[in-house]
């Protein structure tokens, strides 16, 4: 299991890194998503793998704690990853909206805000896609 999961983490992160290095913003957003899966699984794996022993106490009724039950070794990584999952959702949302806004403002969906083969724009010269560079609102 360890081997499979680590290989999976490796492939997820490789795909994520590859996408993050791409020139188009949408690719980068997807890359961040994949990379956050990989990192979340990685952090989760730091608590070691256990099958069929969720950190939920005393499944039966009553207040007795099932002390003889087997539990995962470390519930803390699970709590950390749970917040990380929600935060990576927020991050993806933010990047998506920044991407859209940047595309509207610069007229390009390149990560640098301009197409690479156009060369350096002259200062003060408007971007081809937008007559008012730098202004977000009309």
């Amino acid at each position: 299991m360890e081997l499979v999961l680590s290989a999976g983490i490796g492939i997820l992160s490789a795909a994520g890194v590859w996408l993050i290095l791409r020139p188009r913003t949408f690719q980068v957003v997807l890359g961040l998503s994949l990379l956050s899966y990989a990192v979340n699984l990685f952090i989760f794996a730091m608590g070691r793998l256990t099958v069929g022993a969720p950190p939920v106490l005393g499944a039966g009724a009553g207040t007795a704690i099932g002390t003889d039950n087997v539990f995962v070794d470390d519930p803390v990584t699970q709590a950390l990853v749970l917040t990380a999952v929600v935060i990576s959702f927020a991050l993806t949302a933010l990047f998506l909206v920044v991407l859209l806004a940047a595309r509207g403002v610069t007229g390009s969906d390149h990560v640098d805000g301009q197409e690479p083969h156009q060369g350096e724009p002259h200062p003060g010269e408007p971007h081809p896609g937008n007559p008012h560079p730098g202004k977000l609102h009309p």
Partner: protein
Amino acid sequence: MPPHLLLALAAILPFLGSVVALCLPGHARNAAAGVAGLVTVTSLACIGGLYPLAAGSAPVVWAVDWLPSLGVRLVLRLDGLAWIFAILVLGIGALVVLYARYYMAAADPVPRLFCYLLAFVGAMLGIVLSGNLIQLVVFWELTSVVSFLLIGYWSDNASARDGARMALTITAAGGLCLLVGAVLIGRIAGSYELDAVLASGPAIRESPLYLPALVLILAGALTKSAQLPFHIWLPRAMAAPTPISAYLHSATMVKAGIFLMIRLWPVLAGTESWYWIVGTAGMATMLVGSWSAIFQHDLKGLLAYSTISHLGLITLLLGLNSPLAVVAAIFHTVNHATFKASLFMAAGIIDHETGTRDMRRLSGLWRAMPYTGTLAMVAAAAMAGVPLLNGFLSKEMFLAEAVDNTGDHWLNLALPVLATLASAFTVLYSLRFIRQTFFGPPPHDLPHAPHEPVRWMRIPIEALVLACVAIGLVPNLTIGPALAGAARAVLGDRTPDYDLAIWHGFNAPLAMSVLALAGGVALYGVFGRRIDTNPRGGPWLMHRLDGGWLFERGMTGLVKGARALEARLGTERLQPQLRILFLAALVAATATGVVRGLDLLAPGRSTAFDPAFALMWLVGAACAVGAAERAKYHRLSAVILVGGAGLVSSLTFLWLSAPDLAVTQILVEIVTSVMLLLGLRWLPKRDAAIPAPASERARARRRRIVDLVVAVVAGASLAGLAYAVMTRPAVDGIGRWFVEEAYPQAGGRNVVNVLLVDFRAFDTLGEICVLGIVGLTVFALLRRFRPAPDTLERPAQQRRHDADDRGREGREPGHTAADALLVPRLVTTWLFPFIVLLALHLFLRGHDLPGGGFAAGIALTVAFMLQYMAWGAAWVEERLRIQPIAWIGLGLLVAVLAGAGSWLAGRPFLTAYFAYWHPPLLGKVPVASALVFDLGIMILVVGASALMLVALAHQSVRRTRVAEAEAERAAERDIA
């Protein structure tokens, strides 16, 4: 008033005065001077009144806790040494205030000067009275900063700005070294308190950290005291107003370094390294300073180099490792402060009344200002070491120490000769100062006709010259007791017997004094004219060594180096930056692995292999690789594939005993996918059929190969690391404690949920704040959203449907879409209450079973989202008012109030409370304040995620409406 409060009052008054002066209007010269005078004199009286106690066996101490966790107290400590320095700081400070009142022009912003000056007095007093090394360093840096302001007071003057900048750079850099040195000393001694440090001298000198600590502390002291090669800032600081120069370079700033060396002398001195570093620095500074002073044409320049030389003399004395030399050093510090301050003030009067400080233009001023001339002459004689004045006494002690310092090294042997030589130079420049300025033919074409200054301006000089003469004539009656107190405070039992008498009989020091006096006069007679006409202006032999030039070169080099590094490593383009980042992380991780000997494949724990798990991950890996491949041209399929990878990771959580994570992940996955799909609408068309320019193709391929290698290496190393950790046995960390205490302490059976809403609730509170902020940011960005022009039109399919609908009888635009969505609309409408129920269920069972606020919130969002998708925004909002921003606020409020509730019970913020409640029929129900907190989480999560989704969804409605309205208007205009 009790003595320790008197001490605190004296220390705090200057800072209060500084604030008062700052608040005065710019023209309030007299008021500011009055405040400054009152403050310095009051503080002086306080310190003066404490003399009997300070000179006693135990110092006066006032202390409060400052950083109790680090064992650092704020301690004011007045012993004999601190007393003598405090009197110098305050006494000369009061005289400088009086002098500055008449020196400064009414047009200058004088209150600001007094504000800085009082702050400086406070900082200096802070250094002198510090009973704690860290506190000392803080005041030390404060003097650096305030001296920057004082030197740059005339900020419209370029040389003032440059001088201030150089002084700050050098002394603040030294201060930083001093801080590290103080921390080292504190670590060795086990305390930063001065008493403890002074008591652990032998331990410090034997510690292996002694040399680094010594070098760092001396770096601070020697930069502050303008010792070679750091002396360059002092002559340039002469751009300050003369009262400031008189203060900073006689009694205070430069003496801070000397003070520190004396203060720590019992701890640090007595070793070879101390002797060589301090002794050599002092010797070189004394010689170079006095040699350079000879060739100055500017009065203040001469005094500046003379100050450097005298500081070198004092440093040399401290470096000799002899207790008697320490007494001489303290004595000379006092004497130098008195005669140098008066000389600076005299130079200021000359500058003030004639308009120039250039000795080549000045001459014969005796006729116009005999009184000032006399005072200056006495002070200059004290500086030259003429008998019956105070300078003579300490210089005699210095010469005696030079003779007594025996050893085999050539430096030991040369010391008496070099000391005599430096004294002769001192005589030469003192003579030149007086002769050039006051004697010779009457001056011509000076900017102003010279005359005596106003009465009050001379009083400070008179007081200081009186001190020179009194100490010189009857040392035992004047300085004797205070000096003895200071020496005892430093040396304790090692205080030597010494005699401050003027006449010690015919001995070697006397012969050296006479030789120096005669030699100086003779040298002036021979070389005086050639020095005045020295074409280059700088000192002979040394014009190639320009410290200022080296400093500027060094600063320019630093800036250039930083720019080059930025040009090489920094880029405005994202991809190269990320590539560098990944490579740097890889190198760092590999290096750590190699150094720490990481064995990735060592056998360890493992969990039984399951083919189904492997098959699942085969799919997951295929999804990830497919998404990477298709993200450029086939965005929709890439989003679906990313969702597939997310699904696999969610299933993995479920498989590996993390049901909470699995639930949350899969719900988040739904929302994220929908959001990405909403975003697709605004992206430009990208088609694989459009060929890239040929020139780009080769470069692009090269870049892709490099990126592929980076990605594969990054993935492989993360996989290796993950495998290595997973196969190690579990660490016995804090995890077990949470499992054991979750029920007894928090009444919850779901440990992960208990961790989130109880044990680590503060973290969670921070996290939901982040979530709320992100939601608002998304909303704000989209309010000003300006889509690219090519995405403004309705999508092709929608246009086709609408056109089709318009063409038929009895159909309105939108009917085709409604027909297609008929079944989904029905299903989602029926599903809505059930999803809401599911969300509530997840929320309520969260404390004991997998679920919780996060999962419930996102589930509720999914319920709303489905309605939007099936029915469209307008339809939903006619029937259901969701106000996501209000939800965000409400959620945060509920969470914070749930936390603050524990204050009512007198417990810290977010302490959870739980109990069991037995209502009829329902049986036992747990009641926990954590549940309320979880409710806040749920409400906020709904608000934030709904806000993002709704804001994105509204764009298509709003933008197309705007575009169509514009098109209609344009059409109407055309018709008109």
